């Protein structure tokens, strides 16, 4: 009993939860996922899939996500940018900002990263890779900073601002990919020059199988998780960000500068999204093409919500979403179930997380009886 409550206390402490919130943070996502899978099964039944195939497709989902080295490699490869961008969005939530703009920040970060990488291709690997990532995150930070400054100075809403900046980023990408110094030589379609061999993030598992795509970006991602955990929990800046997010009046009263908090947390979030773009470019894609961001910036919102804006929660949520993506491909191959179903399940998970009351109502026994006022 005591050990258990100690464990709870430590875990809760690690996740930066307040008393009683432990249950919500652990139990809620699990029930949400289970419910989402159940409804997914019902949808499959409704579309005429038989029980046996449903069973097989879920088995394929699990197997494709975590069942082999290749599966795990794919899961984590997909999780890296999701977690990086998700950390930024989660930080925004902590500051009371709803940053929809990770997609655009990934695009700008990735684009600038690839340009830097092929332009300075004769630098040694370590220098080139490091600076590519730095350039990518600075670009993302600057791009998000536009929204931050406009929000802080004019009060324009960040949701609108970041949505518009997303749309602008698509066009910037289209335009850039047609510029002669960016476009790949001899190609007529919009595609950038490739990241040179010495500009690529080293693969981690290619000594087992050259097809395993997992790259050193995973360490960057883990580093970012730890950094964000430290920032939010320990640092003065994190304290100001959290105060602003919880009660901006109190932040004003306490003499924290709300404008600087808004601009700072927006820029930091953009930096992380830009880093995600740069990592994706130099670790996986090796070039920029239209739509290379592939909706990662939007999935990252779901990851941040699922992880409840806690860096460690986001880590697990990102791995889950990475697993759903990797497993979803396997599901399609093994059972012939459309990969769209995975999107439905992902969406349902988010719905249940975002609306915890639904889960509380259908499974009241899973939650503490404490009266909640909010």
């Amino acid at each position: 009993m005591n050990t258990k409550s100690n464990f709870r206390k430590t875990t809760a402490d690690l996740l930066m939860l307040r008393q009683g919130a432990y249950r919500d943070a652990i139990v809620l996502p699990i029930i949400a996922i289970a419910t989402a899978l159940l409804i997914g099964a019902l949808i499959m039944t409704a579309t005429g899939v038989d029980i046996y195939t449903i069973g097989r497709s879920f088995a394929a989902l699990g197997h494709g996500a975590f069942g082999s080295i290749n599966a795990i490699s794919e899961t984590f490869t997909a999780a890296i940018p999701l977690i990086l961008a998700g950390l930024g969005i989660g930080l925004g939530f902590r500051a009371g900002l709803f940053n929809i703009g990770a997609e655009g920040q990934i695009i700008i970060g990735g684009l600038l990263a690839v340009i830097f990488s092929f332009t300075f291709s004769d630098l040694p690997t370590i220098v080139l890779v490091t600076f590519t990532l730095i350039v990518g995150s600075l670009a993302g930070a600057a791009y998000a900073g536009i929204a931050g400054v406009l929000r802080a100075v004019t009060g324009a809403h960040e949701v609108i601002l970041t949505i518009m900046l997303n749309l602008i980023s698509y066009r910037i990408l289209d335009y850039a990919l047609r510029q002669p110094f960016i476009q790949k030589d001899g190609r007529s379609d919009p595609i950038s020059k490739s990241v040179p061999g010495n500009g690529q993030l080293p693969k981690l598992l290619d000594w087992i199988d050259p097809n395993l795509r997992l790259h050193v970006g995973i360490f960057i991602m883990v580093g970012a998780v730890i950094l964000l955990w430290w920032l939010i929990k320990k640092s003065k800046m994190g304290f100001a960000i959290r105060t602003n997010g919880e009660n901006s009046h109190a932040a004003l009263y306490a003499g924290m500068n709300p404008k600087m908090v808004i601009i700072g947390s927006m820029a930091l979030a953009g930096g992380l999204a830009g880093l995600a773009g740069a990592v994706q470019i130099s670790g996986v894609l090796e070039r920029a093409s239209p739509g290379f961001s592939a909706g990662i910036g939007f999935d990252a919102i779901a990851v941040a919500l699922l992880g409840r804006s806690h860096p460690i929660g986001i880590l697990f949520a990102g791995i889950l979403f990475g697993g759903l993506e990797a497993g979803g491909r396997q599901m399609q191959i093994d059972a012939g179930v459309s990969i769209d179903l995975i999107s439905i399940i992902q969406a349902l998970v988010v719905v249940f997380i975002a609306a915890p009351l639904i889960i509380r109502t259908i499974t009241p026994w899973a939650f503490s009886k404490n009266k909640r006022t909010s």
Partner: protein
Amino acid sequence: MDIELKGITKRFGSVIANDQINLQIKAGEVLGLLGENGAGKSTLMNILSGLYAPDEGKLLIDGIEVNFRGPGDSISAGIGMVHQHFMLVPIFSVAENVILGVEPVKTADYLDLSKARTLVNKISSEYGLSVPPDAIIEDLPVGIQQKVEIIKVLFREANVIIFDEPTAVLTPSEVEDFFSIVRALKASGKAIVFITHKLHEIKEIADRVTVLRHGRITGEGNPKRLTKEKLAEMMVGRQVAFTVNKIKSKIGQPVLKLKNIELHTKDNERVLKNINFSIKAGEIVGIAGIQGNGQTELIEVITGLRKNYTGEMFLGELDITRANARQRHVAGMAHIPEDRHKFGMVENFSITENIIINNYYEKRLSDFITINWIKARSAAALLCEEFDVRTPSVDLNGKSLSGGNQQKMVVARELGRKPKIVIAAQPTRGVDVGSIEYIHSRLVQSRDDGNGVLLISSELDEIISLSDRILVMYDGSIVAEFDNTDAKPKRNQIGLAMAGSTEEIYNEH
């Protein structure tokens, strides 16, 4: 209509909110229900209004047992409640608000507003309420809004009317007005339940009083025959000092000086008009006034939350006119904010976090970039100890504390850092008697230590018992000043000045 509660018990988890409550509510009588915040008054009234079902006990109306399944049952049984926070739609007219939920309709779904108007007029003339049926709620003063609530209840043909802290939002003259309405209602045979924590109101208006503490009845009787001291003891559970012990203090140099302060809102409305005053070391200056006469703006200007004012401000010799909130804080200004839930604390933050919220950047608590949470916790624990903030742990959320302890937490944070000038705005609002006593003694102590204290309060009693000097604010200006060191009571003159009638004050000077 008579109501009898027999052995009512209500539990929330392990907390017993109401324990074996027996209560009689009789027609033509005012029952005062006295108790501090959290004594179980609201729970009991929520049982009466059908929001909660009791775990044990019976509810009898005219001797017949009833079971309320929801608020609808209670309303149709003839029980009406006037909440402390009004349940009115601000952009609707009086008549529209009154009929909300029980709209009279002509054919089909066509609203019969003229019938509503007639009924409103009839009710308001019957009880001397004089409320214009077509006025829009948001244009009406709070006192009239309360009358609308009363009309709403009467419109639903309530025979038992429950008032929850009805005078909290009223000015002294509105309170008088309200009491005469209650007397009229009583005379017409209604049963009235009057919930409050103010002793003199109970003595003035109630025919019988029941005192609650920790969910139990701790006293009953005729309030006319019970002394204030006795009532307070029933309510708090120990003897309470009503007079603040104050020795004559040593007045020193001015610590805060305001010169020609002017403030305009965005709509170019002049909300602060040429404010000039200074507060010296060792004195408490009280600002009396009815809410909404510029006090909030004045506090925000003094504490640096508002910037676009003109004039000059000095803290000691230091010009703080252009300083922001943090610079003023560093220079020695403490601020107990008017609304602790809005400005004073973060409910979802731990007590530690709340206590360091405006000093976390100081060297004793942090280095260049990180906060030393170990030092922060021990600093918080020390302050909680010193300022009697009762909590099992400083790691608990601010919202887990009672109102009194939350406020003591804010006071601890502000006074714990030895300020030169204390801006205390409504420092005891929504706080239990014990905490009020404590906070008052702390403010007086701060003054005795040679600090200046500016006290802004809508409770005139508080201003009179604490202040050395009283300024009265009306319509954005300081309209009168009173010396409060001699024992002469000046209630009436202050009251007049609060209502904006300045001639008599000038006559006195």
